[in-house]
């Protein structure tokens, strides 16, 4: 796919890949073998009928392709951009198994169809079942919440989403940068969910602005999809120096509050000259590439394992390297160094080596003695993961949590320990991907429907 030149794109927040033209999309779709066994479908958490939509692209019937996508996936323009297709549908593609052949670019085709639908203002007719006269509350408007809401609305339920922030979308609006997922696209998908008669109440911190007991009294079922929004800090000396950010704060300022447009927008963010990002996941890549676009002279990612173990999507990593981001493998910060004004001036690191595999199956990083060194830095962004947000869960009396503070929910149905309360997404699994959260939402919607129609009751 054609992309913005790295020399250009490090100075703007516009989307990096341009997307397929109609010709390119049809050509790519023609590579699909239309295998009857459909191995790609089994790699998709929401089980889109991939060969069917690709067949319609081949036939240039993009409208029909969009309709097929929407049957399975309420947010195709988002998934086409941020799903890790290389480990999901595309990993199973038969074309990809042929020597010297790339799998069919399913994600890019999905993006093409969703964008085509929006650009041509085609109103894909979605059938909505007759009203069931039952109400469902969805807490959180991220990928899990939006999916549950859309699926239940299509089944005829009255759905209300409660969102704490001033914009719907959760991590899609505060976490993922504009150059990877334009906010106009999130807005478009949110509008689609609203078009199914889902009501979204913004600025509504459940547990404070609306007590949990009122929610339980008023709704027939509740879905909790609040994400795992609390940042983890390594907790090393100097964490509270000025210039040390959590990735959540840095990305919220940049994405949700548009700090890259300061002073036109009022929220500031530090435009560091020498930036260090700690971590090896997609969030670390997002933070590093955002810092670069804010005008950094150098951005360095330090990661305690090696390139092989880093969890970031390959495409994100390659984009980061192309843009000139440096990587220090086998490196762990152990102390932040500040000046008398409380400003960060450097990061003391230690080199690591890999030992035996740990519980995650990856080789455990072990510090090498006498290998300390200091990297100059005025900004550090810790992107080492998140944990369960304490804000809401403590308000749900009787809701069982695991030892990490995440909600214990049935893997298949999303049912929690509390009657009529379901949960899914990061608040159940810990930090994961957008599509996994959507997959959980999809399943929960199905079981909430079964519960509300009296077919299933896990609390009996």
């Amino acid at each position: 796919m054609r992309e913005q030149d790295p020399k250009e794109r490090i100075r703007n927040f516009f989307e990096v890949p341009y997307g397929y033209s109609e010709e390119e999309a049809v050509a790519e779709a023609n590579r699909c073998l239309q295998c009857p066994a459909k191995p790609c479908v089994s790699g998709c958490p929401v089980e889109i009928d991939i060969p069917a939509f690709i067949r319609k692209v081949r036939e240039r019937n993009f409208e029909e392709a969009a309709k097929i996508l929407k049957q399975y996936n309420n947010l195709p323009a988002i998934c086409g951009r941020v799903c890790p297709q290389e480990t999901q549908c595309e990993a199973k593609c038969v074309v990809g198994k042929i020597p010297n052949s790339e799998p069919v670019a399913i994600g890019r085709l999905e993006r093409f169809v969703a964008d085509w639908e929006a650009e041509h203002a085609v109103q894909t007719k979605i059938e909505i079942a007759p009203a069931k006269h039952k109400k469902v509350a969805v807490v959180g408007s991220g990928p899990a919440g939006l999916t549950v809401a859309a699926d239940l609305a299509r089944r005829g339920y009255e759905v209300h989403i409660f969102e704490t922030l001033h914009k719907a979308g959760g991590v899609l609006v505060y976490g993922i940068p504009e150059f990877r997922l334009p906010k106009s696209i999130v807005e478009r998908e949110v509008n689609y969910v609203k078009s199914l008669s889902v009501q979204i109440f913004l600025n509504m911190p459940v547990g404070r602005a609306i007590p949990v007991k009122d929610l339980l009294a008023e709704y027939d079922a509740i879905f909790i999809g609040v994400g795992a929004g609390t940042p983890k800090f390594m907790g090393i000396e100097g964490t509270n120096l000025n210039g040390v950010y959590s990735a959540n704060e840095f990305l919220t300022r940049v994405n949700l509050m548009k700090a890259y447009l300061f002073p036109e927008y009022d929220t500031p963010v530090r435009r560091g000259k020498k930036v260090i990002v700690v971590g090896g996941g997609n969030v670390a890549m997002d933070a590093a590439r955002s810092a670069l676009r804010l005008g950094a002279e150098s951005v360095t990612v330090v990661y305690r394992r090696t390139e092989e173990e880093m969890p970031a999507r390959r495409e994100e990593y390659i984009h980061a390297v192309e843009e000139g981001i440096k990587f220090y493998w086998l490196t762990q910060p152990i102390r932040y160094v500040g000046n008398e004004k409380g400003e960060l001036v450097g990061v003391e690191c230690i080199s690591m080596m890999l030992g035996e595999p740990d519980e995650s199956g990856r080789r455990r990083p072990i510090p090498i003695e006498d290998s300390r060194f200091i990297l100059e830095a005025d900004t550090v962004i810790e992107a080492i993961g998140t944990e369960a947000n304490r804000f809401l869960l403590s308000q749900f009396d009787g809701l069982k949590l695991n030892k990490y503070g995440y909600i214990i929910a049935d893997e298949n149905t999303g049912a929690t320990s509390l009657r009529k309360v379901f949960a899914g997404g990061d608040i159940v699994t810990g930090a994961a991907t957008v599509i996994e959260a959507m997959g959980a939402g999809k399943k929960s919607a199905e079981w909430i429907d079964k519960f509300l129609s009296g077919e299933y009751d896990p609390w009996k």
Partner: protein
Amino acid sequence: MNVIRRKRRLAPGVYDFLIENKHIVKYAQPGQFVVIRLHEKAERIPITIAGKEEDCFRAVVRAVGKSTYELCLAEEGSSIMDVAGPLGRPSEIDFYGNVMLVGGGVGIATLLPIAEALKAKGNKLYVVLGGRSKEYVIMLEEFSKLADELIITTDDGSFGIKGVVTDGMQLLFEREKIDIVWAVGPTIMMKFCSMKAKEHGVKIWVSLNPIMVDGTGMCGACRVSVDGKIRFACVDGPEFEGDRVDWDELLKRLAQYRKEEEESLKLFIQEVGDLSWL
């Protein structure tokens, strides 16, 4: 929602708002705050809830930076784009006996609902209010009604005792057996109040106002060191025991965006003109 029903000037650059919002009115408890966003390009800023009147909550704001200047310029009848809340943990209201309440600047407004709730529990209230000069000591009438004893301090001696609030605290500590203290005001004031309370071995609650973004525990911008541990003021606070807070660190963190704040305010004044009348 969020219509400014009434606006009054309390002191130079200090305005008292009544803002319509049924959720906040229904559920807000003393010590809690809201996060507001004035318009599409505005910041999210935390403002404490100073009370309720019918379907409105009360918020007292001092113009210090662009966002607060802009809010203070907002007219009656206009709407605030977003108001999220109530947020934060409510104050621990109980019967303690003799309670000392110390307020400075707009912190006096934060203190008011706490004072009312403590009074309703039967506590005896010893109140110290301070300001730069007479015109900056706000809400005198409300506190005169509530307080069992009211001491005013001003830096220039234009009203009450010439001095700072800790001088008022000292007077009371010498005379009364105080069971617990609340202090709300500028960070530096709360630091010294905490030292004064510690000196007399009395527990003190302070209400912190660090830089905040989302206000729900999601970003970690508002982190403070309390007993050497990282706490988030938005969900673990805003009230903490004052003698456990790392004040010097907090003061440095508050200065984090000073350069950007000055730039923003300068551009705003260029646009709207002189604001010294506010």
